[in-house]
């Protein structure tokens, strides 16, 4: 049996029929590079979706690749400031190119980013990278107003990674028109049910736009056609997002009632701190994949993607079974 994938923050449903049909059209043109007009059309549609001029849109085969490219282009001679924990591939890219990397710890219980501390770190030319909501804490770490105050510093370049924007509803997108030193990255992979298509995009302020638009990006045909069709199904996307948010709340409530140390988020996953030994391995044996956070969080932290209702229940039941095995489900009085 296929394992239940609750480890990569994907959406549990395949794309709708219209999107799959479009992807098939793309498949038939596999001997060709993608058509410039179609790529233009995608930029228009994304401009429409985000409310940003389409010239500011940078296409990329996955937002992780765009983040890597931006980091590689803009870290030379710059100090890089980012978070710990955060989306690791971006940190790794920074480590490859800079000799000045500072990560600010987001601490329990609320994983708040201390703005005074952050500002004190932004001395001289620097590149600040914030995933907002943050992965894996799922917290909104900074507000658009706070972002503005940072962007007033000319020496600061700021990348805001908004991979989970549709779940949080909070964005800095409209600031890219005014601030040349801002890049916002987004992805089609999560909420449009297109992780396998791998399309990300950036909304670039002038400084970023200038360098990132040096190359013409021919996206893969199938992905391009699928994305174009998916952007016509925004209502479905919103329904799916709302469903996941409701499910997230439900699961958090349920876990809280059971006395589990659980952290709610502004994204499509939750965090649990559990004393069950090797809980990731144990759940894997039961056919459920979740993410071990022990590289970036204290021992015991795991991340679970929210899936369909029955999938979340399946996780809950298996998790409870494990807790039971370790005597964690009953409450004892001394």
């Amino acid at each position: 049996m296929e394992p239940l994938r609750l480890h990569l923050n994907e959406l549990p449903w395949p794309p709708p029929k219209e999107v799959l049909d479009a992807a098939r059209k793309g498949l038939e043109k596999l001997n060709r590079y993608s058509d410039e007009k179609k790529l233009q059309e995608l930029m228009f549609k994304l401009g429409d979706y985000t409310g940003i001029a389409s010239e500011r849109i940078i296409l990329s085969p996955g937002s992780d690749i765009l983040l890597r490219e931006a980091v590689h282009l803009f870290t030379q001679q710059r100090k890089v400031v980012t978070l710990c924990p955060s989306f690791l591939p971006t940190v790794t890219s920074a480590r490859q190119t800079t000799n000045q990397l500072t990560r600010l710890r987001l601490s329990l219980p609320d994983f708040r980013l201390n703005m005074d501390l952050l500002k004190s770190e932004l001395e001289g030319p620097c590149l600040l990278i914030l995933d907002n909501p943050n992965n894996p804490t799922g917290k909104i770490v900074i507000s658009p107003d706070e972002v503005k105050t940072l962007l007033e510093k000319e020496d600061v370049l700021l990348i805001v990674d908004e991979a989970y924007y549709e779940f949080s509803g909070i964005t800095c997108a409209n600031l890219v028109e005014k601030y040349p030193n801002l890049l916002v990255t987004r992805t089609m992979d999560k909420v449009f049910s297109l992780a396998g298509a791998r399309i990300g995009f950036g909304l670039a302020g002038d400084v970023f736009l200038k360098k990132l638009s040096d190359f013409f990006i021919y996206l893969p045909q199938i992905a391009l056609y699928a994305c174009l069709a998916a952007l016509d199904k925004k209502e479905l996307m919103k329904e799916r997002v709302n469903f996941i948010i409701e499910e997230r709340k439900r699961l958090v409530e349920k876990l809280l009632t059971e006395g589990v140390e659980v952290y709610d988020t502004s994204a499509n996953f939750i965090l649990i701190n559990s004393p069950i030994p090797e809980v990731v391995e144990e759940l894997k044996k039961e056919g459920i994949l979740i993410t071990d956070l022990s590289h970036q969080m204290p021992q015991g932290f795991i991340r679970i993607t929210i899936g369909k209702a029955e999938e979340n229940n399946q996780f809950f039941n298996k998790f409870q079974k494990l807790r039971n095995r370790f005597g964690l489900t009953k409450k004892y009085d001394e």
Partner: protein
Amino acid sequence: MKKIGLVVNPVAGMGGSVGLKGTDGDFYRKALKLGAKPVAPFRTENFISNVKHRKDIHFYSAPEKMGEDILKNTDLKYTVIGSIEKQTTAEDTKKIIRLLLKEKIDLLVFVGGDGTARDVYDAEGLEVPVIGVPSGVKVFSSVFALSARSAAAMLDRFLNGVELKEEEVLDIDEEAFRNNILSARLYGYLKVPMLKDLLQVGKKASSTGYSAKENKEEVSRYLEEQMERDVLYLLGPGTTMKSLTDRLGLDKTLLGIDAVLNGKLIQTDVNEMAILDLYQDYDKRKIIVTPLGGNGFIFGRGSRQFTPEILSKTGKENIILAGDRDKVSCLDCLHIDTGDLEVDKSMSGYAKVVVGYGETVVLEVKY
């Protein structure tokens, strides 16, 4: 055929499920009364079932619930050594390990927590390499594998020949830990097989691409470049500091504090009096220490040489923190508990820990 010793602390980890932080002393009986279930046999089974090179090993095991009971149900070759009391204690662990050493084992696998690691250190020091399968409630010592499965992977790797490294055994004050006070002291070191990808589990989480050794070299290269002339450096205990002195061509005491000036070792294993004497002679001074893995302790009741008086004479701005990237990345915050509230307060706030060449993590220091 390799001879592998096996010692299981059968009660390790039982306190956790019922909210007790450890099973030392009377707390074991309390844990039982609260309905705690044994964890160690389960961890041991998990370890054993994941070992791949099953034909190339012969276990020398402690009797009954300290190892034999689990091996009994497997296809593995084993010999039982010695005898144990009905209610097992630390003495049983130590006694069996001494007997295992006489059998000339190549490696010792032990299952337990920090307390068990201390017993192992008491009984064998650095004589044979060990693999620690984590099962205790307090597993802060870095001698432990990440999980029973990675312990099994370690054993397989060991059989193919692998480098060894020294890792920390910590002494956590269990009474204080129950009251949510973390107090830890470096107790000793054990030799463990080096497994580069031990920490690399998740796909996205794994891309640092550095081994612990490379990381230490990076940190020490950076620290060396930052060292200033005519400044007295007091280097705390641990392998990160040792890699710095190795780099400088100096011979450091692993557990002690050593004084370095202009690239020369001027005094080793200094205590408070010796440090105060040195402070009379040198007015520019810095302390470099490593936060303890797991709990992030920088100065505590354990590291007695860095007394409140010395810390206030040194000043927060002259304290440099440096450590292993993977370990520091998992810390939620740093801890300080010198026993002097004023000093703790003056050292609190935020601090930077060097974890790579020019790479730092900024954490809150809590007291």
